[in-house]
């Protein structure tokens, strides 16, 4: 009570506390809008930045004292306001204004981030694992949207403008085209007398009216505008935008990986201390609702039982006889071979189907089916093979966590490599297996009979993959998940109860996202509007998955360790990026661009526009660029980065060693303390035996010292409470 009287006597805050935002700040402080209040305006943000005691103001906020005590400490601090010079007080004011501005900026930015409330709700009901899927999805949506804005600004809009003004391509005089006349034939304009349903077929397969549109590479011209004071080189812009798009995605991914990795490293990967962490951090205090709480309790119980079971299995595995161990390993090797054979068979099937679909020519619905055959085979295998692998993994008798990791690795391998097989088969077809001198590939450098505009064809394949993936996901939602819920809820037969409601499994869903994104990256050079299509697709995914989550799914019985898995998913996304960039680099550098279409039609390779453009620069810029690219600059730079890397590695290991040292020191100190306490007790006991009349107070004094030691280490100890007996 004295504290209240004490702070009621205090004067209003000093002048320099009232900043230009004074009225706004006091509104923030008042619990109820009231005028002319004489209560103290307590502004945490205005704690004086004492040069001599920089730690005190910050510590105040983090002290676990009650508000009354904190207020008293703050009053005492305020009394000790130092006399600062005019420069000092101006600096203080500026830093406060800047901090206030940062706070407001952070609040505004948090309004701009989409779906914040929705994702929080999902996290509250279904836990961190499912929430991490939706956070990943949101990251990809923003990435795709920003990429599309980049492409639109530098490639799409100039192309539209130049086409509407009427600039067309100009054939440079240096290129001799008589020998390649046959390659120039390319007429994708749709037949105006086509049957009406061909429009639908064209929409779905990217041919016909869709082929000759801004969607695909073939529509863009190699316009190079040079008028007074304004020049724009569309081929150069196209290539550099594609390159910059890839670098931008890489930077975003690395930043995100850095954030996640720092969390993983700080917590040692969360491997050690399973039980204690489960008990103390297992309960999500943000859960609301009776059902969610019950499910969470079940979940925790299940996890503890699984962990105990795993321990039992490990002990059993350690106690296997030699014969049993041998049999187990032989079984595992056999099953791994089976899995490899399965996956290898899938790849062979994809290659065959791709070759078949590229070479056949039919019309109508059969043509559509044929064109979609590679997508169908890939999607079916991506669904069936992981299922089989899961069943096989059960036979392998690993611990549950190892089983999950193995299944994930196999699924990732399957998805990315099947895409790679598709691309490899396409490459084989386009470049006659790399032999540009073979009969079908001269004189154009690519198989001109089949592929009049090979970039558009590759773009079309990627477009079909994207579209098919979208259709299948939505189809599964409507045709499988909703009926399953309806049947399980209304039918009380045993089969329905055994099957149960759908569980939202995070790993397959995340891998599907990674696969979609890899397809878009691969196709971005050949189909500039693909990131836009992907943005729309992912936005629709978000809402559809959210609906199905709340309507059809039950929370997973097995929780998902989100932090280390987040890093793993970003790593897999990085692998997809690497695959796409290999395709990009190879297409840009090695394969001859089509003569009949596109912005690079008269260059020997797509990369050629860059040296041409560099030639047109002033000599100073040229010299500068050449210097940066030369050995004189790049080798010292490389050596410097290696030195930096070694330094960081050494720093990391030193810090790790000092952490280990400090931990053991901690343990030793505690043991010393215990030893001393035991000694004191023994001493006490002997003293008491000798002189039993000694008052009890002596013992209390020793226990009080113990408490003080505890208090020094124990921040939970409130300083002014009565020391309790040990």
């Amino acid at each position, binding site marked *: 009570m004295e504290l*209240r009287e004490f702070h009621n006597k205090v004067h209003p805050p000093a002048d320099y506390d009232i900043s230009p935002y004074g009225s706004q700040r006091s509104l*923030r*402080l008042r*619990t*109820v809008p009231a005028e002319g*209040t004489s*209560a103290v305006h*307590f502004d*945490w*943000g205005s704690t004086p930045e004492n040069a001599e005691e920089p730690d005190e103001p910050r510590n105040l*906020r*983090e002290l*676990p004292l*009650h*508000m009354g005590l904190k207020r008293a400490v703050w009053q005492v601090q305020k009394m000790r306001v130092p006399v600062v010079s005019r420069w000092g007080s101006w600096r203080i004011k500026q830093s406060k204004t800047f901090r206030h501005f940062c706070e407001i900026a952070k609040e505004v930015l948090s309004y701009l981030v989409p779906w914040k409330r929705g994702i*929080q709700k999902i996290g509250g009901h279904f836990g*961190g694992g499912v929430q991490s899927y939706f956070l990943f999805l949101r990251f990809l949506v923003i990435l795709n949207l920003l990429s599309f804005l980049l492409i639109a600004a530098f490639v799409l809009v100039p192309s539209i403008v130049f086409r509407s003004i009427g600039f067309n391509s100009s054939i440079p005089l240096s290129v001799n085209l008589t020998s390649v006349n046959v390659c120039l034939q390319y007429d994708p304009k749709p037949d105006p007398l086509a049957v009406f349903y061909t429009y639908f077929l064209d929409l779905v397969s990217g041919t016909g009216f869709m082929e000759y549109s801004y969607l695909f590479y073939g529509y863009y011209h190699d316009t190079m505008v040079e008028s007074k004071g304004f020049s724009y080189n569309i081929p150069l812009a196209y290539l550099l935008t594609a390159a910059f798009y890839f670098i931008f995605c890489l930077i975003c991914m690395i930043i995100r990986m850095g954030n996640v990795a720092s969390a993983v490293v*700080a*917590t*040692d990967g*969360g491997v050690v*201390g*399973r*039980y*204690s*962490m489960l*008990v*103390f*951090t*297992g*309960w*999500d*205090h*943000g859960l*609301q*609702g009776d059902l*969610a*709480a*019950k499910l969470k*309790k079940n979940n*925790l*119980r299940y996890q*503890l*039982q699984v962990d*105990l079971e795993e321990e039992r299995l490990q002990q059993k595995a350690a106690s296997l006889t030699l014969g049993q161990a041998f049999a187990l390993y032989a079984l595992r090797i056999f099953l791994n071979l089976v899995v490899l054979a399965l996956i290898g068979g899938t790849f062979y099937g994809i290659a065959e189907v791709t070759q078949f679909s590229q070479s056949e020519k039919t019309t109508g619905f059969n043509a559509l089916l044929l064109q979609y055959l590679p997508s169908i085979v890939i999607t079916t295998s991506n669904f069936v093979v992981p299922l089989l692998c899961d069943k096989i993994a059960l036979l392998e008798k690993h611990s549950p966590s190892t089983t999950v990791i193995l299944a994930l690795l196999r699924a990732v391998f399957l998805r990315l490599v099947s895409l790679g097989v598709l691309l490899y088969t396409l490459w084989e077809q386009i470049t006659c297996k790399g032999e540009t001198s073979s009969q079908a590939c001269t004189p154009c450098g690519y198989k001109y009979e089949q592929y009049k505009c090979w970039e558009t064809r590759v773009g079309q394949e990627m477009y079909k993959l994207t579209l098919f993936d979208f259709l299948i996901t939505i189809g599964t939602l409507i045709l499988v998940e909703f009926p399953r819920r309806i049947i399980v809820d209304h039918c009380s037969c045993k089969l329905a109860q055994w099957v149960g409601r759908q569980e939202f499994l995070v790993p397959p869903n995340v891998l599907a996202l990674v696969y979609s994104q890899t397809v878009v990256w691969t196709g971005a050079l050949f189909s500039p509007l693909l990131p836009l299509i992907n943005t729309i697709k992912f936005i629709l995914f978000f809402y559809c998955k959210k609906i199905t989550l709340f309507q059809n799914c039950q929370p997973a019985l097995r929780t998902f360790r*989100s*932090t*280390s898995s987040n890093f793993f998913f970003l790593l897999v996304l990085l692998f997809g990026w690497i695959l796409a960039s290999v395709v990009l680099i190879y297409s840009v550098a090695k394969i001859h661009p089509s003569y009949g279409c596109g912005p690079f039609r008269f260059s020997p390779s797509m990369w050629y526009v860059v040296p041409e453009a560099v030639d047109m620069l002033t000599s100073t810029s040229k010299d500068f660029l050449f210097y940066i690219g030369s050995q004189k600059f790049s080798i010292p730079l490389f050596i410097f980065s290696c030195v930096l890397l070694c330094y960081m590695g050494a720093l990391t290991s030193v810090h790790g060693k000092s952490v280990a040292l400090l*931990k053991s020191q*901690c*343990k030793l100190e*505690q*043991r010393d303390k215990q030893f001393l306490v035991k000694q004191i007790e023994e001493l006490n006991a002997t003293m008491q035996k000798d002189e039993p009349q000694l008052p009890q107070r002596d013992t209390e004094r020793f226990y009080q010292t113990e408490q003080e030691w*505890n208090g020094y*280490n*124990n*921040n*939970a*100890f409130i300083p002014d409470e009565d020391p*309790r007996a040990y």
Partner: protein
Amino acid sequence: MNRSKHICLSLHCSLHGRYHELAPHLVPMDYTNDPDVKVPLALIVNMPELKENPFRNRIVESFSEDGQGNLSFNDFVDMFSVLSEMAPRELKAIYAFKIYDFNVDNYICKEDLEKTLNRLTKEELTPEEVVLVCEKAIEEADLDGDNKLSFADFENMISRAPDFLSTFHIRI
């Protein structure tokens, strides 16, 4: 009075509204005279954010000045500010330790752990499993070998927990 570093403006006003809702006859709308009003434990644990929390009693008791769970408005704001997403990790660790220390002896001993575990799993683990899990938990976190967790042990263990910040968080 508020801890505006952890709670933003709109949240603070809504907190006062929520506090008033708990006991409209007890809590005045006008706080200019800084009335000395405390809402009892029984009313606070009925909030929807706390109703299903197995540790609701301990949470409210840890933030009350008298240790019995009667919260003034400042304590109420304190509680939600520590449990918000912006409170620093050290502060959350301090209060988490207080919450799990059922017998308030500044140590988490085996009995505290057993009570925690029973509340977490609604007593569906067998007694042997409970004892096993408690033993393992103490074994993992105890640094000084006294078979109970002091705050230093607890904080060391929490610093390695990846999900602590996101689970020790009440959304209001």
